[in-house]
């Protein structure tokens, strides 16, 4: 059993194995993700009943909630990848962590934008300092910090390790930050309508939400795979397997042989 | 000003001396591999350094001398392979290794806003003022003990650091370009200090651009395979 785990561990650390296996997985995830998203979005936008309080504007949650959940999970995944890279010195882990940072930041921005779009009809303004939006904003700042480290440090190895330390410290602080912001919010605002804080969600609203959440996760995986594969191709560009791969791709697309 | 050599080879090492359990090598490496910016600096590097050795890490610029030194010190983890201290894996003995190590680096490691005496007192908290003054005298800085170090010349500042060689009783010396900014007389006397330390059972590892008139083993980097030719 241990030998199988060890073998798996070594395989996971190999860029070539990761590249080959994600070639298959990407297609699968993309297909499943698209089906989920399509179903969820159409159901949510067209067929789910309108909310008794907010009318139709609540439908943005089918994008907003997945984006929020995912940007928070992505930070944790990035921190875990950093931890694995630091402790077990697995270079692939660092690559995955590096790749997730801009993805998570984009999702946070998407969450903030959709939150603002949702806020306009609900509260009358484009921005409101409620607990969720403020927490998401701070999460975006945490992402900015990690991205800034990658930009500031030229040496790859040092940048990976520094970003790993920062994302681990950040992820430890995320619960503290969330708790503080929620508490701060209760000081200054009476309980307002917050997302999903409704007592229960009717199943006709809830199921499409689950579908879009799962769909987002699938697309997230595809996105991470795609960027990681790019990094791998670039880093391993001098190895034989990459050269062969690129040559055969070239042959396939142009019919010509170099 | 010259370095006065008062390092008596017959003085036995103190309690921090070499491991009494045997005469095996102190610092060993097996299969060291290091690459930087996609260039392999050295691979499959093996060596055993024993008490009494004076080892010079040599090679052209960029060959990996400082990288190797930082790996030996434990400041850099960017390598593969194994390091051993007194025969055991280094990772389990970091405290022991560092307790017996004196490192003089490329940077002087001395605070400009402190006097030489205060600087040395930090490196050796248990040393008496007498010891410190004695060490400073040996490097020719008698009378400068309580001036602020940033008022001294570069060579004098470096000699404050060199005074540690007389003050701290550490068996392993790792010295990076120790002869920088030292005049000719000082160089030959520092050479003698190094020889005496090795003869007393210490281990010295150094890099330098000077021509040393010292019996060294040379670890040559920058070739296809790193070997350890005997000198």
């Amino acid at each position, binding site marked *: 059993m241990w030998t199988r785990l060890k073998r798996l561990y070594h395989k996971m650390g190999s860029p070539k194995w990761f590249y080959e296996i994600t070639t298959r997985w990407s297609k699968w995830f993309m297909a499943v993700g698209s089906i989920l998203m399509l179903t969820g979005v159409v159901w949510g936008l067209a067929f789910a009943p309108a909310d008794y309080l907010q009318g139709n504007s609540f439908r943005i949650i089918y994008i907003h909630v997945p984006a929020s959940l995912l940007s928070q999970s992505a930070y944790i995944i990035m921190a875990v990848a950093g931890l694995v890279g630091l402790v077990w010195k697995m270079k692939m882990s660092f690559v995955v962590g590096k790749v997730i940072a801009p993805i998570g930041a984009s999702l946070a921005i998407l969450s903030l934008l959709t939150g603002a779009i949702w806020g306009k009809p609900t509260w009358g303004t484009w921005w409101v300092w409620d607990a969720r939006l403020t927490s998401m904003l701070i999460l975006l700042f945490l992402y900015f910090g990690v991205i800034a*480290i990658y930009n*500031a440090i030229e040496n790859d190895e040092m940048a990976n390790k520094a970003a790993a*330390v*920062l994302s681990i410290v950040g992820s430890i602080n995320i619960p503290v930050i969330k708790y503080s912001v929620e508490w701060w919010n209760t000081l200054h605002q009476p309980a307002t309508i917050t997302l999903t804080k409704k007592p229960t969600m009717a199943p006709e609203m809830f199921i499409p939400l689950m579908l879009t959440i799962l769909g987002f996760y699938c697309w997230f995986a595809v996105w991470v795979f795609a960027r990681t594969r790019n990094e791998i191709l670039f880093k391993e560009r001098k190895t034989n397997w990459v050269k062969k791969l690129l040559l055969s791709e070239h042959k396939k697309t142009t019919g010509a042989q170099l | 000003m010259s370095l006065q050599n008062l390092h008596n080879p017959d003085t036995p090492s103190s309690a921090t001396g070499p491991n009494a359990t045997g005469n095996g090598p102190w610092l060993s490496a097996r299969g060291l591999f290091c690459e930087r910016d996609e260039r392999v600096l050295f691979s499959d590097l093996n060596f055993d350094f024993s008490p009494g050795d004076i080892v010079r890490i040599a090679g052209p610029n960029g060959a990996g001398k400082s990288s190797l030194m930082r790996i030996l010190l434990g400041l850099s983890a960017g390598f593969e392979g194994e390091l051993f201290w007194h025969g055991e894996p280094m990772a389990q003995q*970091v405290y022991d290794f560092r307790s017996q190590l004196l490192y003089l680096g490329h940077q002087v490691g001395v605070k400009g806003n402190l006097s030489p005496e205060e600087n040395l*007192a930090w490196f050796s908290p248990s040393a008496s003022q007498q010891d410190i003054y004695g060490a400073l005298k040996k490097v020719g800085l008698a009378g400068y003990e309580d001036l602020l170090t940033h008022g001294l010349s570069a060579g004098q500042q470096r000699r404050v650091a060199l005074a540690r060689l007389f003050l701290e009783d550490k068996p392993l010396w790792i010295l990076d370009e120790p002869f920088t900014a030292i005049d000719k007389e000082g160089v030959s006397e520092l050479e003698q200090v190094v020889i005496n330390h090795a003869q007393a059972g210490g281990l010295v590892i150094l890099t330098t651009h000077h021509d040393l008139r010292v019996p060294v083993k040379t670890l040559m980097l920058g070739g296809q395979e790193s070997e350890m030719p005997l000198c």
Partner: protein
Amino acid sequence: MLMALLKRDLLLAFRSRGDLLNPLMFFMMVASLFPLAVSPDPQLLGLIAAGVIWVGALLATLLSLDLMFKSDYEDGSLEQMLLMPQPAMLMVLVKVLVHWLVAGLPLAFIAPLLGLMLGLPNGGFMPLVLSLLLATPILSLLGAIGAGLTVGLRKGGMLMPLLILPLYIPVLIFASSSVQAGVQGNDYLGHMAFLGAYLALTLVVAPVAAAAALRISLAR
């Protein structure tokens, strides 16, 4: 060796005590910007005094974090410290202690003066000083992580605040709201308890993280 480090750093701080005034002067200046920018109306100022003073304290701390490692990095002393047999995180704790004594604690003494200038109502002074006393160690601890990560970088100056400010936000929230609670005559012990708990968490996490950061920065 750690006691020696403490003595040495305190001595060094004393020798350059002129530099220590800079963050304090900055603190005063920043707080004074608000009446100029918003309005000198004492009613209004009194409302925002707690927040203004606390934001000023955060910014002044960020400015002072350079003191922690930069000088030692530049002359090679930091290298020597990482080669001490004692674990690096203890060394970091000593550095944080010195930084707090030299840069954090003075903020707590100046703050009541700023409170006066900004018309802070009477109930706010006690929690202001208490929160500063309790929270400035947290700022130094978290700051050590940022300082450790950026000590070797040329452009480190702008980067460090980006890294640490999100982590400072819980401190800001609880500290300034404790002052508000005091102003309104409410109990603020709960706020202090949170700050105490956050201090405990940071005491455990920050030295380890900062030591790791220093090793990464010096592995060059």
